[in-house]
């Protein structure tokens, strides 16, 4: 008889506590749920053909001066649209200033580049093409070159009134880029209701992420970024956003919050690509970073235990898409010059 009552109490307690867990879960799920749609700007409407054209251009090295580099050279889809090196070697055979950021989940971004230099993907697209350290080419050259290729020529003329122009080139690329979203990850399964999609450890990590570790302060929303600029106390000379907002104290040493989706495959981390592992990233946060006036108030010493950090890392790993494979397009062939 006593045995039975004991069991009853245990079951009852578990039930109560599981119920207690429910509303939290639901809130989290709602917070991190992916949107169904990608918004395209009115002046740059979506056409699959344009996106496809953009994809070709993205992968076509003939956009670079020496015809050796394409956008994909630095934004490699296999590495989460980044580069495994801390800072990529460019056209001048010198490492670039900053680590190549991912180009996933940027349709909603108001500003692009670590420092928010440009305000649209179109603008951003021309940057690397024309930068002497990067692709070292001119738009005119690109246009010139593309006009030599009948396929490009015909497509541009079909899709755009202007035909091949700088504007249409970057438009195409931007349209393509807008379609890029991180793939479906186990965490998304969890969000869709599958409690077993992420491990207990990851679940605990999520709680820490949104709780003690205060990651969600900046890494919020479905893409785990607020698309804002924050100084996280890194030891660096790069003043980041501060270059464009010299008067904004908070903007000094501030960099755009990168998305955490697929973060586990996008090492090394930070604008200089100097932090190799997620653990070291967490260690940095745990220590609280360098104190300076621009530092975000959310970045403090955390006093996370090793196991807590492990939990957070476990959680972050659940954000990696099940399938990161991106197919490469067929590029129009070189036409032999007579």
């Amino acid at each position, binding site marked *: 008889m006593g045995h039975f009552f004991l069991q009853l109490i245990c079951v009852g307690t578990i039930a109560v506590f599981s119920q207690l867990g429910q509303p939290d879960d639901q809130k989290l799920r709602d917070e991190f749920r*992916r949107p169904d749609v990608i*918004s395209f700007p009115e002046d740059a409407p979506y056409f699959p*053909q344009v996106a*496809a054209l953009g994809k070709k251009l993205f992968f076509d090295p003939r956009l670079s001066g020496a015809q050796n580099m394409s956008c994909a050279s630095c934004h490699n889809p296999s590495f989460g649209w980044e580069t495994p090196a801390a800072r990529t070697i460019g056209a001048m055979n010198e490492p670039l200033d900053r680590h190549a950021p991912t180009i996933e989940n940027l349709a909603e971004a108001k500003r692009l580049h670590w420092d928010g230099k440009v305000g649209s993907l179109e603008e951003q697209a021309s940057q690397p093409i024309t930068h002497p350290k990067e692709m070292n080419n001119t738009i005119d050259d690109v246009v010139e070159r593309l006009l030599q290729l009948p396929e490009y020529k015909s497509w541009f003329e079909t899709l755009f009134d202007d035909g091949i122009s700088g504007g249409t080139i970057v438009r195409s690329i931007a349209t393509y880029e807008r379609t890029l*979203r991180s*793939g479906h990850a186990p965490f998304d399964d969890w969000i869709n209701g599958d409690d077993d999609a992420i491990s207990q450890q990851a679940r605990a990590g999520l709680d820490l992420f949104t709780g003690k570790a205060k990651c969600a302060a900046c890494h919020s929303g479905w893409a785990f970024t607020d698309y804002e600029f924050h100084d996280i106390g890194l030891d660096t000379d790069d003043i980041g956003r501060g270059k464009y907002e010299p008067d904004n104290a908070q903007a000094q040493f501030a960099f755009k919050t990168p998305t955490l989706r697929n973060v586990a495959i996008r090492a090394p981390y930070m604008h200089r690509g100097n932090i190799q592992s997620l653990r070291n990233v967490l260690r940095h946060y745990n220590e609280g970073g360098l104190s300076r006036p621009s530092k975000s108030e959310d970045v403090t010493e955390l006093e996370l235990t090793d196991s807590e950090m492990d939990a957070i890392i476990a959680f972050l790993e659940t954000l990696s898409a099940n399938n990161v494979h991106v197919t*490469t397009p067929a590029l129009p062939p070189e036409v032999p010059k007579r």
Partner: protein
Amino acid sequence: MNGGSRSLRVSIFLPLAMLLIIGSSAMFWISETARNSHEYAEIHQQQVTKALEVVVSSKASIAEIDRYVGEVTSFDRIIPQDEISETFTSLRRKVLADLKELTLHVEMGVDAETLLELERSAIEWADNAEIALGLRPSSNIPTFENLSVKKNRIQSTMSSVYAQARIFEERAMIENRSRFREHMTAAQISLIVLLIVGGLIAFYRANHLASALQRLSSDMTRIRNGQFNVQVEDATRKDEIGEMARNVASFSRDLQELTATKEHVEYLALHDPLTGLRNRRCMDRKLDEIHGTDNSDEEWIAMHIDLDRFKIANDTHGHHAGDEILRAVAQVLNQQVSPSDLIFRVGGDEFLVLSRENATQEKATKLAASIIRGASTPIRYNGAKLQVNASIGIAFYSQSERDPELLLSNADLALYDAKAAGRGLFKFSSKAQRIQRERQRTTLEQLKRGLAKQELLVHFQPQVDVSAKRVIGMEALLRWDHPERGTLAPIHFLDLAMDNGLGDELTSICIQQSIEALKNWRDLAIDVPRVSLNFAANQLRNPGLIDELNQRVCDSGLSSRDISIEIVESVLFGDREDLAISQVKRLRDLGYKIELDDFGTGHASISNLTRFKVDRIKLDRMFVSDIDSNKDKHTIVSALTDLAGKLDIECLAECGETPSERDELLSLGCTQFQGYLFSRPQSQPAITLWLLHRNSIEVSSNQAV
């Protein structure tokens, strides 16, 4: 079968037919139900299969369109708008067509909501896909994941549709199956019930029939075992069994009659109807039985009883009186013997008693005495007083070497003894008798050997005419030259030979040797006018006798006149039907001479002479002896010789001893003589010598020796 009777056939076939009908209709129903159920199940199975097909097809077309969307949104190829539009439209049409077909197929089993959901999710996806394919302008482009989720929803709804459809069909099939099972159970139960009922009826009928047959069978067995008064049941039934029963009853009666008849026949076969006693055949069987189951310590006696003077009574008072006597005697026997004794009537006036209980000297004596006493009691019949007597011969089984034949034979001998001793007595079979029989057997053996060794010879005794002083003939007398006993006259062996089938041989010897002798004498120029052969009645009765005689006579060149046949009176003057008489007549007709031997000793000698003409009479010794002293004899002989002379019959005297007799006879006119005075019988060589000698003497003197 008449109209009023029922046939067993109905009784047998009806339940069988019923069972057959039940069985076949049940079979039919079961198979029909099974077929229907199977068809129904098949249909539903087909439905499920078809639904699955459609679902698979739908899923395939959805997958195809999805793949196309995926291809387009991979952006690896720039596909012209109209191509996208065309392809997508046709693919979508296919999807919708498939979904429509699916809906049609599963309308029955799937709830409307699910089908609506399917349609809705399909449309939702299609709308989103259109945007993603750039077929419909929008600033919000559905993500790949979005499309994927929506596609999955379609797929899962379709799976749910399929599942529902399947459940529906399965339920239908389960229903069908359970309905089938119900039907089957009903069929089984009713079949079992009907079969049990039908079976019981059939069984009952069969049992009934079997019982009737069994009763009949046991009745027949009882009848077969002799119980004829069995009451055959079922005889009143109107069917085949009734007929059989009536037939059996009829057979029973027939059998009863036949059995009674058979028993009666058996009885008659083994019993004497007159006296009710067992007969000779029965006696033979009984003796065989005794011999067969011989217990060597069991003693039996056989009493052979012969009635004396029965023939006289029979002749005097008639056959019915005779019957009465026999019945009376039978009664006496029945009264006197012990219960276990057996009485047999074995002859006209002969009885045999076989007794175990009285098988001692003392008891047998008592019994025999009482039988004689009883038998000699006078019987009243038709106012007359009948009286007979009994002679009894008694023999013991143990003394007869435990051989039934010897037992009878000994009893016979004893009876003969009793009769010889004066009748109205009983005699036990004596050792002397047995010895005598033994002796007789020995003698017979010796006779047979003797015949083979030619010990049987004919001797001759001359017949002389004293006045003429010549031999007028020879009498042939059979002698046996016995190796031990010397020369034996026929009296020692003739009856024995006749009784044992040697008579004919002896007759032949007589004839042969006599004729041979006569021929010899003729050849030697000895005058022997004739030779006389003795024939007994039974010899004369042999039809071959005359032929043999004639043959030999002829072969030897003699004639019938040379032969004289000697017979006793009784032969001629006995039963008129006797073959012997006709044979004699025939012989006479053939020229043989006929002589009457031992004349005067028979019944009505004198009158007989007129009846049959004989050539000679031989006066018996009785008349001849002391004729010289006996006046009466003298007178008689005188008369006889006179008579004979007057009838032209020769007369010969068997004269034995004295010359004075001879002389006396001579004086009476009897000139022919035969006897020791002249010569005793001698063998042929001896008598031939005698003849020769006599001839020479005669020549020299006239003295007759």
